[in-house]
């Protein structure tokens, strides 16, 4: 295993406190050779994008469990666009119904992982984003 040379910001937007998935995926990413800046809970979109800017991140990973994903995804993609950070990959995970997955991809989200996605699939998909 070697350092992949890529940095992730991983966190949650808004008030939802379910961080199980976040912690587990952070660990998987770290074990897989990524540098993960763990932003944790209670971030605003502006803050996550600021963090991505200061850390010169390659990707942002957010998890949603409360149904607020569409609202925040719109906001996030806008904020990245306004900051000329379109090269940052956006990866979302959590409780997201199939119709919404389609809408998110349409917004430019690079990958969406729903509950029960095996670890291998998540890591392979993420690796492929950087090839």
């Amino acid at each position, binding site marked *: *295993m070697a350092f992949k040379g890529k940095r992730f910001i991983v966190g949650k937007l808004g008030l939802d406190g379910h961080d199980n998935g976040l912690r587990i995926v952070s*660990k998987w990413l770290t074990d*897989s050779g990524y*540098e993960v800046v763990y932003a944790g809970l209670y971030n605003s979109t502006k803050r996550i994008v600021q963090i991505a800017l200061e850390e*010169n991140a*390659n990707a942002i990973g957010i998890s949603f469990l409360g149904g607020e994903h569409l609202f925040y995804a719109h906001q996030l993609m806008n904020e990245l666009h306004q900051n000329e950070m379109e090269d940052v990959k956006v990866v979302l995970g959590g409780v997201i119904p199939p119709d919404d997955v389609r809408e998110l991809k349409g917004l430019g989200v690079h990958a969406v992982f729903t509950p029960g996605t095996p670890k291998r699939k998540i890591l392979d998909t993420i690796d492929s984003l950087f090839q």
Partner: protein
Amino acid sequence: MNSYKVDMKETKDDLVTGVLRGDKRCASQLMSLVEDGWREGEACLRRLYATGRRAHIVGVTGWPGVGKSTLVNRVARFLLAEGKQVGIIAVDPTSPFSGGSLLGDRERMKEIDGDPRLFIRSAATRGHPGGITRTTKSFIKIMEAMGKDVILLETVGVGQNEVSVIQVADTVILTVIPGMGDYLQSLKAGVFEIGDIFAVNKADREGVSNTVTDLKMLIGLNGSERDWKPPIVKTVATSGEGIEELMSAVARHREYGERCDLTVSRRASAAQSEILEIIKSRILHRMAEQSGLQDRLERYAREVCEGTKDPYTVADEILEESKIIELH
């Protein structure tokens, strides 16, 4: 490697001007250039050194679990309230097995994260055990060039390797928590010489007075030749207790350092070691550029293990072959 906007030459000037203006994006990109070893990064740094801008650099060090990040958060909050421009470099270890790292210090700084006068950058040790590397020094230089008044450097832990924090910091705050008495006693002397200020965090816990007593004794034993008597400050970083006292100790130490030229001499010795480091790395880099070095090295290494050659002879041979240094 990170992908940047394509035309390097043009962006280089923009990066430097941007950093000098305090632009976060430029500073961030330059930090990555430097971190990933791009030559362009070095070119920018040369120009930044020329500006001569200076900040007060405070190193916060201590074992995992003592609450360094929470303490740094409080210190930064204090400084921002005073209207200062603040930079934070938070170092976390890279896993030797996976090469990845979990950089979680920033999570503890939510209160202040986002303040325009504050720049926080997380750094992974990337194979350097102490965590203080040329990259760290470069980051400090970039933040100084941005116009930061104070730069807080939060390091990984304390041990033999951590003594190097003294090379980059003007003031070192060594942080402990109550109940570490036995562990403290078992540490080597050098560790206590690096602390300019000792913070006993989580001071609302039991055993704090014993820890303070232990510290007094250990500091006395190990640092008695020093002119500066390191103060011991009790803090509760989660509530903010003791922070004012801590900051006034920092201010006093800063003033002392300037008055007694301590700061100047520390920085001079830091600069010396940095120069030597750069020389060493240039040499190795030049040699690595020569094709086949890695293969030859592997071959030589096998011979050394088999006993047909000794490492000194091998080293001389490599140096001769590379023509970098004439040995005779």
